[in-house]
């Protein structure tokens, strides 16, 4: 393996940029090396489902042509990127981790994908995930689980486990994931990388295969806060192909990573620190002490509706999922079971195609929306969601950011929780609230347990205050050196 190939594993976006500008390597050499490294390393973790070398090299050639012509190839010039396989790529298979879409080749690109390539980014391939992004461990993929690069017998988290693992393992510099209830932050925490869920509507979901539309986000992974911020910068902003994308202008996040966080008011919600595994709690509290040293004012706050978040989330998310997944009926998307009537065709295709967790959620969602139960479950959950959002609104009149754990415990063993769906759902407690409220939130590495398992710290801020969130996370990262 070339020296460049193995160094790709640790480079950051600014370092890649410098290498390209100083002509130490071309974008094509970089893409070839990154592919070589990723293809050699991938069998260890199963993070990538498939690679797209032709597309990657074509994009790299464009960057080299622009550099040769003295043009600016864009802020992601030459950057090797992994894309979660729930985000569509024209001409490149997009499976959503499902047997149903095993052979699906989309006819268009997601807006986020298009914007990354316009900014010079190089998409190496598509990453493994829980089927239709439903899961917290990546064990629900039809194409086998992903192993955590930090501990190969453990899960990488989910549902964006492949993207988190790819970045942690050095098989991509940055990656796209999607987050509906923690699917970017929890795997980022388990794998020891930075993972960001931006404000709802900040990034267009055009081309993100829908799971729960009032909760779905696309979000970036990086090995540094700066890289993740730069990727978000590139993909954020209004898109007329997604009516829910926000009009708010996108600030220059990277320019504001000035390390100045003195006087920032940080809230620690007491509901989030009860019932934590002790090592996770100790590490997050050590992180809080570091924030104090940086001049932040830390105070305890209360988000009283927190304990209702899991039931609220799993009603809304499954209800929306049962509707969104109705389209996989054997008529339009590649896979069809043999049947004599249309009705049997739908049923047999779906029965054979969906995995156990998708079926469970479709059933739960259909139940809570069914006649006689709608008010008791779905409407009730929407009201509780309003209370959870109101808790955050009130808290942000007193503090500028909220700091919490990401997950109650570090990465668990593969197979450890797979037979207890409720137990798995309960472990999402700290991440689902941010999605329900639609506020920006992220996981930043804050150390490792005695068994060398990464732990993440979550930072949440007001709607559209990604700037404040990144500034805090960047100052924390630089002061602690916890990344990597």
């Amino acid at each position: 393996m070339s020296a460049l190939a193995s160094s790709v594993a640790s480079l950051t976006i600014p370092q890649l940029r410098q290498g390209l500008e100083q002509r130490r390597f071309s974008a094509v050499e970089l893409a070839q090396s990154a592919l070589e490294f990723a293809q050699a390393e991938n069998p260890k973790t199963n993070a990538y489902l498939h690679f797209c070398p032709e597309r990657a090299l074509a994009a790299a050639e464009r960057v080299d042509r622009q550099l040769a012509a003295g043009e600016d190839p864009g802020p992601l010039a030459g950057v090797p990127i992994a894309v979660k396989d729930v985000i569509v790529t024209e001409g490149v298979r997009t499976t959503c981790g499902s047997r149903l879409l095993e052979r699906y080749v989309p006819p268009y690109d997601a807006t986020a994908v298009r914007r990354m390539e316009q900014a010079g980014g190089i998409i190496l391939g598509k990453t493994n995930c829980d089927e239709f992004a439903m899961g917290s461990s990546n064990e629900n993929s039809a194409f086998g689980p992903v192993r955590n690069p930090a501990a190969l017998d453990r899960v990488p988290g989910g549902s964006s486990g492949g993207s988190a693992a790819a970045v942690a393992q050095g098989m991509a510099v940055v990656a796209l994931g999607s987050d509906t209830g923690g699917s970017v932050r929890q795997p980022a925490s388990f794998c020891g990388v930075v993972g960001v869920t931006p404000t709802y509507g900040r990034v267009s979901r055009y081309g993100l295969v829908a799971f729960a539309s009032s909760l779905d986000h696309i979000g970036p992974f990086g090995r540094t806060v700066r890289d993740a911020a730069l990727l978000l910068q590139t993909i954020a902003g209004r898109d007329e192909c997604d009516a829910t994308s926000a009009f708010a202008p996108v600030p220059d996040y990277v320019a504001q990573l000035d390390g100045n966080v003195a006087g920032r008011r940080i809230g620690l919600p007491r509901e989030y620190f009860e019932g934590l595994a002790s090592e996770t709690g100790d590490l997050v509290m050590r992180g809080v002490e570091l924030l104090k040293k940086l001049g932040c004012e830390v105070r305890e706050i209360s988000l009283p509706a927190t304990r209702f978040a899991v039931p609220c989330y799993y009603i809304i998310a499954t209800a929306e999922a049962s509707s969104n997944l109705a389209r996989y009926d054997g008529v339009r998307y590649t896979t069809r079971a043999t049947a004599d009537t249309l009705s049997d065709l739908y049923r047999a295709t779906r029965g054979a195609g969906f995995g156990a967790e998708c079926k469970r959620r479709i059933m739960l969602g259909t139940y809570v929306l069914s006649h006689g139960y709608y008010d008791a479950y779905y409407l009730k959950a929407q009201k509780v969601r309003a209370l959870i959002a109101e808790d955050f609104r009130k808290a942000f009149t007193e503090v500028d950011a909220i700091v919490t754990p990401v997950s109650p415990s570090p990465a668990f063993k593969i197979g450890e929780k797979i037979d207890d769906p409720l137990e798995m759902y309960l472990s999402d407690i700290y991440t689902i609230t941010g999605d329900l409220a639609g506020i920006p939130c992220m996981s930043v590495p804050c150390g490792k347990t005695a068994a060398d398992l990464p732990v993440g710290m979550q930072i949440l801020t007001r709607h559209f205050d990604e700037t404040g969130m990144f500034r805090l996370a960047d100052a924390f990262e630089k002061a602690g050196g916890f990344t990597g």
Partner: protein
Amino acid sequence: MKITEKDVRYVADLANLKLTDAEIAGLAKDLDDILTHMDALNELDTSNVEPMAQVLFDNEETATLREDQQRPCLSNEAALAAAPLAGNGYYKVPKVIER
């Protein structure tokens, strides 16, 4: 038990899912556990709370509208490329209407 196997069969029918007997038994237990946990929501008085259907939308109702102009779109061929069975520019399915 909130959920019986009969309920599971009814909901599976609504959801167009063909399930095996083993799946039905497993789902009855899982859904029962999960829905029992969800009953916790009833502890909250929400009689004066407006349901939250979407996160935020600060712009005027017409902000997302645009001029109704013709623009390029997917070709019929591209749109049907992923179909398991297509013909004459349409998706093909088993006969629905008896003549």
